[in-house]
């Protein structure tokens, strides 16, 4: 059986594991090496990175976009007072 480094399915599992905690350095290097010779796996790794960014993003650059209306602001503040 060939080494996991040459098997896309096993590499994809390792890429996922690398997002969940400490993957040994040599495993991370093997993933990187595999990505250099395998564009689909490199794409997969990039996709997981984009999904993580999508989850964590919260700074909306939209100072010119409308914010909460005064009415909504007041309504929300009142609702919060009612349960505090």
């Amino acid at each position: 059986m060939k080494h996991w480094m040459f098997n896309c399915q096993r590499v994809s599992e390792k890429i996922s594991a690398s997002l969940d905690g400490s993957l040994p350095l040599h495993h991370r290097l093997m993933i990187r090496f595999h990505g250099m010779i395998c564009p689909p796996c490199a794409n997969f790794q990039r996709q997981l990175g984009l999904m993580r960014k999508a989850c964590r993003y919260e700074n909306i650059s939209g100072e010119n976009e409308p914010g909460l209306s005064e009415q909504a602001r007041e309504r929300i503040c009142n609702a919060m007072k009612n349960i505090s």
Partner: protein
Amino acid sequence: MSQTTELKPEAWVAQYGDMLFRFALRRVNDTSLAEDLVQESLLAAMKAKDRFQGQSSEKTWLFAILKHKVIDHFRSKNHWATGIEVEAFAEADEHFNDDGTWRIQPKHWDANPHQVFEQKEFIDAFYLCLSKMPQRLADAFVYKEIDGMDTEEIRKILNITTTNCGVMLYRARMSLRNCIEKSYATP
């Protein structure tokens, strides 16, 4: 992050109201619905404030609650214009041939990682797919990536082993990327 982060609910609307609203509005494209989601999120945060452990900032914590509300909103909608099919969430094994090569090779997504949130098509596809995922898989993914929990916490909540937790997160990621790829227009 500091363990002593203190919550200041009385300042939430003034401090984060606009940011939360803009985030919600971009997802749902409906002003009154976005306002409702912000209100629901802040009320939920008030009720849960004793459970805030200070591992993240107040802002990140409030955003995480809002993201849950957005996903719940999409999940509760019955009508889907996107035609995302259940097959998008096939078992991870089904994405590979017997020799471990990709059955359908992942494509290059055009989204720029530094401006990911500015790319509405991508984020729309992301939230839509997340809300259509099988619930347990979506939960594992959301706990990890939105709530920032570690594997041990997720394992306890879902009552599974550490190994199974890794497997679930893998399946969740495979499913989600597959669904996004099917619904997100790539050049």
